[in-house]
């Protein structure tokens, strides 16, 4: 009877394609919007992801997310180094500073100042130059996207393309000379400003004078040290906040979830995809069942039990569900792949595939339930009505 169920469905081309289109649209919209949302949210903690060496981030207890810098006194670094279980602790400066470009314009940059001795916290991938080049005078490393776009030099000919910043070019950061010694690749950040790496001392020179300039202390735990216990020990001994890298990502993620409108905006788009998908697929599937009511009645009269009809309808729902889901997810993946090199934030994860799969399954179940209810209640005597 399964082949009959499938032939009944596929034979009605218009409705068959209509249901698949509805489900494809829902799957595409749900997967695509969720992937953009995930990509965007991943960017909120891009800096933490890139700084993979430290186990623990120590900061002011009032810090709510990575860009919410509340500086500490430099002496906190030494207190932390003295705590049992700490293998090493290094300072990190993180701040938004104005860079003056060759054309006289100013650009806000995300400046990261790394420990002078170890350069821990450097970019994950160098395209040109090396991290140790930061030991040169006035040196900075710039991320490739920033070098190509916002920090690019004006075109040499009128109407031409801006020239990317190259090694040897100079910038002025807060009236201090800075020389580009390397180009790196980093994860895109939420605000997408150019990222500049330099040493901690140089970064504090670039920064406007303040009493406190230490943004974070990056801590590596001794081997076999329980990270949660070490965080708790640092908190107790210093009164500062200490998070594992993952906990700091979660803190940042939760801040953006709670205090920005991003989840609501994307949630509405996802809900819209779900509702429209349910409406189109459910309505078309229901119409398909209604138009086939005479044949379901005939099958019932000829000995098809409700259980057999139930399985037939579920199989039909399963077929359109799998096709719609596959096409939608495939479309979303092509979309993400095609626009991968642009500023689009797109991250299609295994969890998202499960999420959109569950949503499409729910749409199919809801659509099928309406039809099943109708068929279950169908009186086979209907077949003798003209």
């Amino acid at each position, binding site marked *: 009877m399964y082949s009959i169920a499938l032939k009944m469905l596929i034979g009605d081309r218009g409705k068959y394609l209509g249901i698949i289109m509805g489900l494809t649209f829902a799957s595409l919209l749900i997967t695509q919007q969720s992937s953009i949302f995930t990509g965007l949210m991943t960017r909120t903690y891009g800096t933490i992801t890139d700084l993979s060496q430290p186990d623990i981030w120590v900061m002011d207890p009032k810090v709510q997310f990575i860009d919410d810098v509340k500086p500490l006194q430099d002496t906190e670094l030494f207190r932390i180094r003295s705590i049992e279980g700490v293998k090493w602790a290094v300072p990190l400066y993180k701040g938004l500073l104005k860079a003056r470009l060759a054309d006289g314009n100013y650009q806000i940059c995300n400046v990261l100042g790394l420990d002078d001795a170890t350069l821990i916290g450097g970019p994950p991938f160098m395209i040109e130059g090396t991290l140790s080049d930061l030991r040169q005078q006035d040196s900075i490393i710039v991320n490739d996207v920033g070098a190509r776009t916002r920090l690019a030099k004006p075109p040499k000919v009128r109407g031409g393309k801006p020239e990317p910043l190259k090694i040897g070019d100079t910038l002025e950061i807060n009236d201090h000379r800075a020389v580009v010694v390397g180009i790196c690749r980093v994860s895109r950040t939420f605000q997408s400003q150019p990222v500049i790496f330099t040493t901690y001392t140089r970064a504090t020179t670039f920064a406007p004078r303040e009493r406190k300039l230490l943004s974070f202390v990056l801590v590596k735990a001794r081997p076999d040290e329980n990270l949660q216990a070490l965080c708790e020990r640092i908190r107790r001994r210093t009164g500062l906040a200490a998070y594992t890298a993952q906990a700091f990502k979660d803190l940042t993620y939760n801040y953006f979830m709670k205090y920005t409108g991003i989840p609501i905006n994307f949630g509405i788009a996802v809900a819209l995809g779900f509702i429209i998908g349910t409406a189109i697929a459910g309505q078309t599937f229901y119409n398909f069942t209604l138009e086939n009511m005479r044949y379901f009645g005939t*099958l019932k009269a*000829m000995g098809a*039990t409700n259980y057999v009809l139930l399985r037939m309808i579920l199989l039909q729902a399963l077929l359109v569900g799998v096709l719609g889901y596959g096409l939608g997810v495939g479309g979303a993946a092509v979309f993400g792949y095609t626009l991968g090199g642009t500023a689009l934030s797109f991250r299609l994860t295994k969890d998202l595939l499960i999420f959109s799969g569950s949503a499409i399954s729910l749409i199919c179940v809801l659509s099928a339930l309406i039809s099943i209810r109708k068929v279950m209640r169908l009186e086979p005597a209907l077949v003798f009505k003209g």
Partner: protein
Amino acid sequence: MNGKDQDTAVLCRSVTKAYVTGPTKVMALRGVDLEVRMGELLMLAGPSGCGKTTLISVVAGILDHDEGECLVFQEDLRAMDQTRKTRFRGRNVGFVFQTYNLLPTLTAVENVSVPLLLSGHSRADAQSMAKEILVLVGLEERPHALPAQLSGGQQQRVAIARALVHRPRLIVCDEPTSALDADTGQKVMEVLRNTALAEDRAVIIVTHDNRIFNFADRIARMEDGRITSVESQVPH
């Protein structure tokens, strides 16, 4: 069970059925008595709305009657639960409908296979048996045609093949010739009488088409929910 019981396919005693819609109650059957014997082709005739279709619906087990007794092969269908009744129909009853009710997306052979698939036959077995029965109704050359590619008469022959393929003991037909012209109707009735009727099977045909009365062994006339007369005749 005595010999007479075994000769009886259907036995209705004082069967009543009312349709209730809100405050309106319409009596479709007002105490019907009817016996249909094995090996017999019985026609139910009468004007529209006299209860013919309601009566064969009750006899075929697709509609419950209100009062009285209706035994089909000595089984009281009203006493069965829905699933058992559905399975009983699947094994014992074949249907031929006025508008054929062939599944439009299935070929002739696939349509004929449906009762066999429902009773658990494999697809290959079902199609093989379906092809054999299509030969019997004269459609051996078009087994893979869709219903829309067949004429009305051919579609009705496919429907007859579908009603016979699983060897049911009772065939019920609702106006099988009313959608056909006179010649085609005659040919369909010939096929029906020649292929459907057997000693171990009974055929009930609801019709108001008096051109086909000559195919009946007996004609039961209905009026206003009652059987008013039953005439025996020698079929042509």
